[in-house]
């Protein structure tokens, strides 16, 4: 941490008093959320947004007196931070332990090629200072975890979850519940994005006597098993899709601060309903295969706080102390055992052993199946490899099982010289699908009762790149 948090402006999240008429002479940096005259720079800089109905001078001062924490300086965090900084939020904290890589640049608009290798937080803050020098920027160049989350989040009025893994998402939400902070959460993978505002207006843990806003756990009770989870690294991500979600996150955050919805209600005799917007999950689906439309945004109405919620519900046992001492265990909660395959050693070969056997001419006639997606395959493959994407292989296998048919149909027909004892080698991206493919082929009798060897290449094309051909374009 490069900046003393104690030096941040003490401007707490108190709504600015309504001020009709002229300002007094009290210019400059006024005290706790009070009304003051805007500086000339502020006036010039923010005029276009201030004249929008609903913002005005008071809304602008609320932004200036607010503190936002952006967790994650990637595809969501960059566009989110850009608009939040542009809008003049007074203090902007950014948490991320990663450094800028060239593969980030197609979507992470706060980073540039000349800052590759720099901490993402520092790179993004450099970008934000170029936009607006007025806010105070606070870098946290490490990952957020159960040990430090509460301490960091407690310094802010609103949190934006721009992270990329479920364990962190549950942790952030739990801390926001306990510290009464609104949370603007978004996620995006491949061609889809999601956005939801949680815990807003914030309500103390355990209150269930009325309609209150949900937390992340109210909406998403359990994480998906890791085997079904897609990451941007593996599934890919379209820049504008994640960008759209990050921009929408900034929009929601600005709205909350301008309307002072981030302030925890103390007076529960006033029904909260008037402030409780319908909790809504925004879903954006981007269709790359269709040239034009249909544009697909859908807003799904979500239920409010759940009585039996583990985090915010009536009998919740979740505490800050517990989280810090490891209860609940977020990593464990999000990593239920996933099926793993381990084939016997004689059905496996390392990438380098396969390469050597080939160069020594030990396997002159064989079939090499590459089960990666066709997009991955299109960048390059081992000489002679035939592409049968894993999903298609499974679909074909299921069809043969269901409707009958020759198992040999699973293999490409057009390869010359393939006989019933021609060995088959299977390679995939990282070495998991290929093992399942070997199992499937054997199960359907492609091994011809043992006459044909079916062998998995251990570690997939990743191992090929690491151990055989470092120039291979692996993605």
């Amino acid at each position: 941490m490069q900046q003393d948090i104690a030096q941040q402006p003490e401007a707490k999240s108190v709504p600015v008093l309504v001020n009709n008429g002229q300002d007094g002479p009290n210019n400059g940096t006024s005290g706790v959320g009070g009304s003051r005259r805007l500086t000339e720079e502020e006036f010039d800089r923010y005029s276009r947004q201030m004249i929008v109905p609903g913002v005005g001078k008071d809304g602008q001062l609320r932004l200036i007196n607010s503190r936002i924490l952006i967790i994650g300086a990637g595809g969501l965090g960059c566009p989110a931070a850009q608009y939040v900084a542009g809008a003049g939020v007074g203090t902007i904290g950014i948490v991320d332990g990663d450094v800028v890589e060239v593969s980030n640049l197609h979507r992470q608009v706060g980073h540039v090629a000349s800052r590759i290798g720099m901490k993402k937080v520092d790179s993004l803050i450099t970008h934000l200072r170029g936009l607006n020098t007025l806010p105070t920027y606070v870098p946290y160049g490490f990952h957020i975890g159960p040990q430090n989350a509460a301490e960091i989040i407690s310094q802010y009025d609103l949190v934006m979850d721009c992270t990329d893994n479920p364990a962190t998402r549950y942790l952030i939400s739990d801390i926001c519940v306990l510290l009464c902070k609104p949370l603007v959460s978004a996620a995006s993978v491949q061609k889809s994005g999601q956005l939801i505002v949680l815990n807003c207006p914030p309500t103390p843990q355990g209150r269930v006597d009325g309609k209150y806003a949900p937390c992340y756990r109210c909406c998403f009770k359990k994480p998906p098993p890791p085997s079904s989870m897609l990451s941007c690294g593996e599934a890919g991500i379209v820049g504008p899709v994640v960008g759209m979600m990050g921009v929408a996150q900034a929009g929601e955050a600005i709205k909350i601060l301008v309307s002072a919805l981030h302030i925890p209600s103390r007076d529960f005799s006033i029904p909260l309903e008037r402030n409780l917007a319908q909790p809504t999950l925004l879903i954006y689906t981007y269709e790359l295969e269709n040239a034009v439309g249909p544009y697909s945004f859908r807003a799904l109405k979500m239920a409010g706080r759940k009585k039996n919620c583990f985090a915010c519900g009536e009998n919740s046992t979740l505490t800050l102390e517990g989280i810090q001492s490891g209860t609940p265990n977020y990593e464990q909660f999000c990593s239920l055992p996933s099926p793993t395959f381990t084939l016997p050693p004689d059905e496996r070969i390392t990438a380098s052993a396969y390469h050597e056997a080939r160069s020594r001419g030990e396997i002159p006639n064989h079939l090499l199946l590459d089960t990666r997606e066709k997009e991955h395959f299109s960048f390059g493959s081992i000489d002679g490899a035939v592409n049968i994407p894993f999903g298609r292989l499974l679909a074909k296998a299921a069809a043969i099982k269901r409707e009958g048919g020759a198992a040999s149909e699973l293999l490409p027909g057009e390869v010359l010289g393939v006989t019933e004892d021609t060995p088959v080698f299977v390679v995939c991206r990282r070495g998991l699908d290929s093992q399942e493919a070997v199992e499937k082929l054997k199960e359907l009798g492609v091994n011809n009762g043992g006459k044909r060897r079916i062998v998995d290449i251990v570690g997939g094309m990743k191992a090929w790149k690491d151990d055989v051909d470092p120039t291979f374009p692996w993605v």
Partner: protein
Amino acid sequence: MADSTEVPIRESETPTISITVDFYGGLDTLFGKGQHKLAIPAADKSGSPSTIGFLVTHLCETKMNDPRTDLFVLDGHIRPGILVLINEADWELEGEEAYEIQSGDNVVFVSTLHGG
């Protein structure tokens, strides 16, 4: 929205109910894009009214383009991390898998995303 309209044709005399089903968050690649208009049997094999639990099995058996059913169901139940909404309401409020499907219902399956 509906770009993959399936015309429900059933040869048997089994009474059916018409519903719409949507998939989001990657599930659309398992079932095909757009809104699915389906005619499902009004009752399961034992004669009980069709529930969401029945619909899930029915979808796996008849509608899935991809054999990786574990991306949709695990141990006979919808897998964790998939949000189910029945007529725009959280299915927990409707009785989850036991909810008896009515004609005209809209069921939405959303796989939650975590990337960023």
